[in-house]
Structure formats: C-alpha cells, structure tokens
C-alpha cells in the first residue's frame, strides 16, 4: 500500500485527526499571540512581570515539553481527583509554552529597540502617537515577524506530543492506522507530507521576511 493509497483509504480518519490538530493549534496560536504579546509589552515596563516572563521562559526552555505535559495531565488529575479531557490539558500546556516564548520575543524586541529612532521622531516634532504608530510598531513588527513565524511552526510540531496523553490528533490517528496495517514508513511519510505542506511555506516566508527586514537596520 503506497502513501497515496493510505491517504485515500484512510482520509476520513486523517481529516478528523487533522481537524483536532488544527483546533489545538488555533487555541495555542491565538492565546500565545494575544496573551504572550500583552505579557511581553507589560514585561518590558514592569520588573516583576519581567522576572516572571524571563523565569518561566528559562524554566520551559529547560524542561522538555513532553515532561511538562505529563506533569500537568496525570498529577493534576490525581490531585484534584477529576478526569480532565486530554485536549484541554494539551491546549493549556502548549499555550503556556507559546505564551512565554512569545512574551520573551516581544519583551526583548521592545527593550532592545534603538531609542534613537524614537528621539529622531521627537526632534522632528512628531507626536507620541505618531512615533508609536508610524515608527515603533512597524519596525517592531518587521523585527518580530520572522522569529514569531518560526516559533509558531515549532508549536505546530509540538502538537504531536498531545497524542501521548491520548488526544485524537493527526499523529495518534496515524499510530492507530499503523497498528492496523503496519506500514510505518508509508504512514509517517503521509504525516510528514502534511506537515511539509503546512510548515514549509511558513518557514520560507519567515526566511524571506528575515532577509528582507533585518538588512533594514544597517546604516553605512
């Protein structure tokens, strides 16, 4: 059975798994960008939030995501004596990882922003609102976008971990199909094709934006 045969014969299962993966991913991306972005902006100003953001980013950078996922899933259920839908645990865990990753990106970009570009705006008589909207935000956006896209691709890959706490996402579907027909190379290649189709354009876009925008800061 070829990769194409597998995709055709098991398309219903794959599509269901894909839907769960995309739902999970949507939660992670939206919460990460909204909450992580906000936390990053405030952490750039507030030292307590800065310590929290930095500390959590260090912690989550050191603890494997899978371990963090298990910590939040099994012990939490035992402690509270409740059954938690694994989708929610996966969404919460990966959202936390994404929120602090984005928060640190935003915080560092704001804190490292060259103030002289803003002073150049002030001495040319621009109002604060114009300086923020016309200078600071567009420059920060250009600086952040490539790294942000790459982080989100990594988060898409991380959704695979959800299968290990029984979330019926695409990797778990692939595992189930493999248990039935035992064609691991073909099945995981089909899975790889899916990720390639989604991730490659994002990676290429991130690379293109990085090439285009990072050169902008140079002055000869």
């Amino acid at each position, binding site marked *: 059975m070829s990769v194409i045969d597998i995709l055709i014969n098991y398309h219903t299962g794959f599509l269901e798994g894909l839907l769960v993966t995309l739902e999970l991913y949507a939660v992670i991306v939206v919460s990460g960008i909204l909450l992580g972005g906000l936390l990053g902006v405030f952490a750039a100003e507030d030292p307590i939030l800065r310590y929290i953001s930095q500390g959590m980013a260090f912690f989550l950078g050191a603890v494997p995501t899978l371990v963090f996922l298990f910590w939040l899933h099994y012990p939490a259920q035992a402690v509270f004596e409740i059954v938690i839908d694994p989708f929610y645990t996966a969404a919460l865990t990966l959202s936390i990882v994404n929120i602090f990753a984005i928060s640190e990106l935003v915080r560092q970009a704001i804190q490292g922003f060259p103030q002289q570009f803003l002073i150049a705006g002030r001495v040319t008589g621009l109002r604060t609102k114009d300086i923020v909207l016309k200078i600071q935000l567009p420059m920060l956006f*250009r600086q952040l976008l490539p790294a942000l896209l790459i982080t989100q691709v990594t988060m898409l890959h991380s959704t695979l971990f959800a299968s290990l706490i029984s979330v019926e996402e695409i990797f778990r579907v692939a595992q189930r199909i493999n248990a039935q027909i035992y064609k691991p190379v073909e099945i995981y290649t089909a899975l790889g094709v899916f990720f390639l189709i989604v991730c490659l354009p994002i990676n290429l876009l991130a690379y293109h934006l990085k090439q285009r925008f990072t050169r902008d800061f140079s002055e000869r």
Partner: protein
Amino acid sequence: MIIAKDIHKKFDQRTILNGVDLTIDTGKITCLIGPSGSGKTTLLRALALLEYPDSGIVSVDGQEYNFPKAAETEINPPWPHVSVVFQSLFLWPHLTLRQNILLPAKRRGLPDVHARLEELIRFFEMRDFIDNYPNEASRGQQQRVALARALMLKPKYLLLDEITSALDVEQVAKVLEYLQGVRDQGIGVFVITHLLGFARRAADQVVFLNEGKIEEVGGPEILTTPKSPRLQQFVKLIEAAS
C-alpha cells in the same frame, strides 16, 4: 538666538559640563571642537533639551528653560524649531528616503510639503536616490537626507553632532557647501566637528570645549593663533595626526 547660561551637568559623580555659557546666532555657523570626553555631545543635547542640565538656563528666542526645573514644571521642548541631526543618522529603515523626509511634515500638517520637498531635492541633489530605502543609500546620501528631514520643517536652528565623521574628503567638502547654503537661508547652525579644516572654512564662530568648560571662543582665526595653551596643544595634536 539660543543662549546657554552657566550650564552644569554631572553623570554619576563625574562633572561633564561645568558652567558653560554660549550663544548661537541665526544665520551663522558655530563649530564646537574639543577633545574626546570634553562634553561636546552632552552640551548639544542640553541645548536641544534632549538632556536636561542639572542647573543653568537655556533660552531659545526668548523662551527660557530654567534648571533645575521645578517638579510641577512641564517642559515644552522647542522641536522642531530647534532640530538635531545625530552622528548615527537614524533614518527610519522601513520608510523610503522620500517618506523619511515627508513623514514629520505631513503629520504636522504643513502646507505645500511636496513643493518644499522638491526644493530640498534640488538643493541636496537627491533626485537619483530619493525613492530608495536608507540601507540602499551611501553614507553621504543618507547624510543629505537626514539634513533634508531636519530642514523640511523649516527650523531656525540646526544642531549637528559629528555628521562629517564617517565621510571622505570630497563628501565633507560637499556637506560644507550645503551648510553654507543652510546658513544663507538664515538658519543658525551648530556643528560638533573634529575637522579643523572644516571649522576654519565653515565657521563664523569657533568654540573650544575642554573638560566641560569653554576655554576659548572666537572667529576661525583662533584655530590659527590659539591663545589658551590647551587649544594650542589640541590644534598641534590634530594637525600632526592629519
């Protein structure tokens, strides 16, 4: 006229400016020279009110700014009436050179901005590169755009911090020519420079700053026949080095 009276400034415990008195006239070029660490940039920033002095008075066309300022006093800085061009020019990299010049003028709602821009394009010979981005322009071209961005808003005073530092001889001569044109428009130009030749040819007034104090002020002739021993030594060192 910009008048600085008895300006003092310390960073931590180090005295940077120690009782500076200075006058900058409209329609004149004032060159500020002095050794590294003598407080030149701090003085420029104090005159532009980018950095508040610890004590002293800065007066811009009669509008006095007294320091130390009372806690409740709101300072309304004289920008862009007094405009500044920095050593690193800080052109906004996401905008074309044309947009860099137009943005402040448009946001301030100035009339005839495009006609004014055309004048500046002609004056600074920027036609060939005006629609490029800053990173696509040479240092000399960026310099002209930074000057044009400041002049677009018709300032009365233009303060320039070592803008010739990264330029070759030909480009320095060109900047000199432009600054003389700017002066002839009645604008007061204040330039920090380490190029004595530039100061000799351009300046109506030369100010020598040493260890936070003005040691000598006069016409460009003070660079040929300096009175203070420190200026004599400084001129000798610079000329030997060049």
